């Protein structure tokens, strides 16, 4: 359940298990960051242009900034082996279930 919209949102696009999401321009953002993480220079440019045409400079910069930060912080988390906090378990249960996250190799839970 999204606290912003009070709606249950299908977020399976996050894991690549769905092609769309009920977040405004969500697909544009997802294609851009997929290109950043796994694509070619040309793909990064074309998806960036697509995002720019719809949302402009600041949105592109903000998306690039978030993607870059998480590309780095993911490594920090997994190189140091940090555990998921017990305090977050209950409120993330539905989301983890929807996205089948608990089976991930990097799922580490606090005791």
């Amino acid at each position, binding site marked *: 359940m999204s606290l912003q919209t009070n709606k249950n949102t299908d977020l399976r696009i996050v894991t690549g298990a769905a092609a769309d999401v009920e977040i405004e321009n969500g697909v544009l953002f997802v294609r851009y960051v997929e290109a950043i993480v796994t694509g070619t220079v040309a793909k990064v440019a074309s998806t*960036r242009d697509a995002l720019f045409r719809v949302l402009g*400079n600041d*949105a592109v910069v903000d998306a*690039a900034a978030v993607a*870059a930060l998480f590309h780095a912080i993911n490594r920090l988390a997994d190189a*140091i082996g940090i*555990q998921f906090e017990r305090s977050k378990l209950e409120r993330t249960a539905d989301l983890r279930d929807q996205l089948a996250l608990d089976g991930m190799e990097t799922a580490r839970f606090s005791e």
Partner: protein
Amino acid sequence: MYDHAPYAVRQDIVDTHVRAWRHIAAPGTWLTGERRVAIAAETRNAAACPLCGERKASLSPYTVKGEHDSLKDLPENIVEMIHRIATDPGRITQTWVEGVIAGGIAETDYIEIVGVIAHCLCIDTFTDALGIARHLLPDPIEGEPSRERPAGAVKDTAWLPTVPPENADEELLAIYPRNIGDAPNAPHVRRAMSLVPAEAISFFALNDVQYLPPEAMWNLPVNPRSISKSQVELVASRVSSLNGCFY
């Protein structure tokens, strides 16, 4: 730093990147500036390493043996560490980390190396995403590392010791959000590099300008970005999924 970029970059990002770049070059807590810049250079080099490519494509990275295509400026065990973290972080195991430590890299050095990798990757990925040429690596700054290990680090929320809030000094406490909305006390990711506080503090300065600062994370109506929080989280979570990062 971004004066000639094809996109207007927020001043807080510019300022923080300038500081972060200097942070890479300066003497650290355990490593010299020269060593730190070499780590940044090897982080960049890792993407093109054929051994890393082969490991990434294999069912298990541990079955693929060979030599990394390195810049030859660092010992092999540090090269192995950098290349794994840079290219295949989602399959790092506790056994591998313990093997790296047992193989001669001190826990404190390990954390500082992770810090340099994270700083370099963050800024390089940002420039790549905007189609900007990567910044030249900075010239190392002379000087001795401070060699101060914080007291009170414990191994309870990660594979390496971290400093819990009750043992943190004022400087470290500043990056542990408290009393903001219903913020949990020191999310584990903010504690991750606290064994080397200077790395944690510098990296979370990047976090707060590129992602969301604590006062925005825990307060729904507060959003300093041009995109919605749903869009921010969509970007963050898709990247994390692609990197195989559960946290």
